[in-house]
């Protein structure tokens, strides 16, 4: 079977050469089939567009509306269309400030939310990918070699899963992080690979006993080649799905850790930091301040979850209920 993509020009040539051809059979490879299934999943397409839009905003937004911690806007006494003195309150959403301004320093909320997206997404995606790499290595080694290696590695996973991870992340991020976003990301990865390791291990265990692996071993293929050419490609789909869904949970946890003041430094806007600052102004009725950064988190997470579900259906059709 020829798996090379069929270009339109080649097809025309084929038709010209064989005028009797009525049905053009185009063979699709595994990924093309998955893409076709994914496109049919409307919620997943919607979720991906939502997530990619937010990523684009996070990438381009700060170039247009940059945030500078030391640049504090000129104070305003009255909000647009209001005659009551502003006091230390922020202003509700208006045409000048689409999402309103914060209380106290009166920063524009839109600028904050756009700039916050960058670190929140970077930590979410970075930590999940890094965790997936660690998890795949550990799970793969444990599942492929088995025996005492498997036993030791899985006990380590047991121990780490028994610890209340959020507690541990809080402590480690506080004591080692010092507000550096990269360290926070690494901390999330180091304490987040265990579930993927378990998943990969079980995949390797079942794939290891497949006939094609036996065949490969019988003709003398090396362990390394069996792992990378025969087993890993078959285990990739569930890993991709799990990693995608992990991004959502890391974004939420990171927001919470930053919200408590144990995560990213307060001079850098993340969604968690913005929410954290809003806390003292909520009793003054500044509803827009916590609303918009929170909605950004919800939309991002919702988008990722839809996308992950679509990916699961597309890549692993057997798992559909």
């Amino acid at each position, binding site marked *: 079977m020829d798996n090379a993509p069929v270009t339109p020009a080649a097809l025309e040539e084929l038709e010209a050469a064989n005028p009797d051809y009525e049905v053009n059979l185009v063979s699709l490879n595994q990924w093309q089939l998955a893409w076709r299934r994914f496109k049919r999943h409307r919620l997943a397409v919607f979720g991906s567009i939502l997530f990619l839009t937010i990523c684009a905003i996070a990438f381009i937004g700060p170039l247009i509306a940059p945030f500078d911690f030391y640049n504090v806007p000129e104070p305003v006494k009255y909000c647009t269309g209001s005659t009551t003195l502003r006091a230390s309150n922020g202003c509700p959403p208006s045409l000048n400030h689409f999402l309103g301004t914060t209380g106290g320093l009166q920063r524009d909320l839109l600028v904050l939310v756009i700039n916050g997206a960058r670190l929140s997404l970077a930590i979410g995606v970075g930590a999940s990918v890094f965790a997936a790499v660690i998890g795949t290595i550990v799970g793969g080694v444990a599942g492929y070699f088995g025996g005492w290696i498997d036993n030791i590695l899985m*006990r*380590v996973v*047991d*121990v*780490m899963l*028994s*610890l*209340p991870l*959020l*507690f*541990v992340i*809080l*402590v*480690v991020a*506080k*004591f*080692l992080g010092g507000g550096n976003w990269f360290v926070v990301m690494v901390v999330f990865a180091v304490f987040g690979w265990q579930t993927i390791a378990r998943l990969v291990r079980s995949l390797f265990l079942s794939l290891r006993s497949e006939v094609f692996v036996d065949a490969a071993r019988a003709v003398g293929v090396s362990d390394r080649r069996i792992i990378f050419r025969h087993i890993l490609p078959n285990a990739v789909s569930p890993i991709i799905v799990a990693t995608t869904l992990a991004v*959502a949970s890391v974004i*939420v946890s990171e*927001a*919470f850790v930053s*919200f*408590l003041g*144990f995560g990213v430094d307060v001079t850098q806007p993340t969604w968690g930091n913005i*929410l954290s600052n*809003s*806390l003292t102004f*909520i*009793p*003054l*009725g500044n*509803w827009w301040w*916590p*609303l918009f950064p*929170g909605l950004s*988190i*919800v939309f991002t*997470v*919702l988008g990722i*979850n*839809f996308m992950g579900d679509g990916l699961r259906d597309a890549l692993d059709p057997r798992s559909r*209920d």
Partner: protein
Amino acid sequence: MLKYVIRRVIQAIPVLFGISLVTYGILAIAPGGPTARFAQNPRITQAQIDAFKHRWGLDDPLYLQYAKWLGIWGDAGVLNALPGGSVDIAGLHIDLPGGDNGILHGDFGYSVTDGRTVTDVIGERVLPTFILAGTAYVIWIFIAIITGVYAAVRRYSLFDSALTIFNYVGFSFPTFWLGIMLITLFAAPPLKWFPVGGMWTTRTIPIFATGEYWTFVGAHPLTALWDLGAHLVLPVLTLVVVNIAYDSRFVRSSMLDALNQDFVKTARAKGVPERTVIFKHALRNALLPVVTNIGLEIPFLFAGAIVTETIFSWPGMGREFIQATGHFDYPVLMGILLITSIIVVFANLVADIMYAVVDPRVQYD
């Protein structure tokens, strides 16, 4: 069966040991520590700091500190792990060889912030956490089972789709943001229906769980209960909304599985009334995995509400943990980490054993 239980218990021991090692390791490599607070004080000399370190055994090598903390080394030397003190058996007074310090003897040390024992500090937080998490737990399990079963029975109905959407949104809601928004909506002006946080109205009611509090409860039971209830509404609502999502989905899929089983089809074919089919044949089997899952969520009753407790200033374990982190209070941190981990291991064990008991198909070995 007994063999299975014993084997599982033995398997848990290295995990518990690993947990103690990781817990100790994390805080050993962390900067700061008990002497960090002296750095700001110019009148304290290095000699005094050294004396302090020596007094608390902080100048020992790390493995010795760990051994002492765990209780396998101490006043009684290598025998320290054995039970200490003395017992009277049949008039005979016997001095036991072991010691009485260290985790193995239930001694978690003293809080750095206020000098009380860690067990005291944690102990007074258990009841508030239990009240909050327990109330939420009962409500959300109840709602999750009812909605999950109903959605499965009426599959593809309007209710089923509505629940699916609600669950998706519930998954995506960060707990802490939901709490903040509930405060913004219902506790901040203009509505001000519920208190912003805390567990009791400090102006009118004495401190929770003190002698005066119970006297007050005895004198005005309704006022006290009403006040507690008002403080409970928002945090419980937060926990319930976020947690229903996962559990009702779980119940739904488990019920769908059960409804597709052959014995359900047989029952229907024999003309058993639909009610009986659902409640007697399907539901009973669908609840098997649900029971295990509910068991696995029990540690949450002691530890899990960290987010909600912080947002609503609820004086429970989670908030104590956050405060202890802020104060670099290592003994309290280690105590909470260790106790919650032990509860998690224990709950996993109980869930596994329960599953083996309720489902005869599970093989013990």
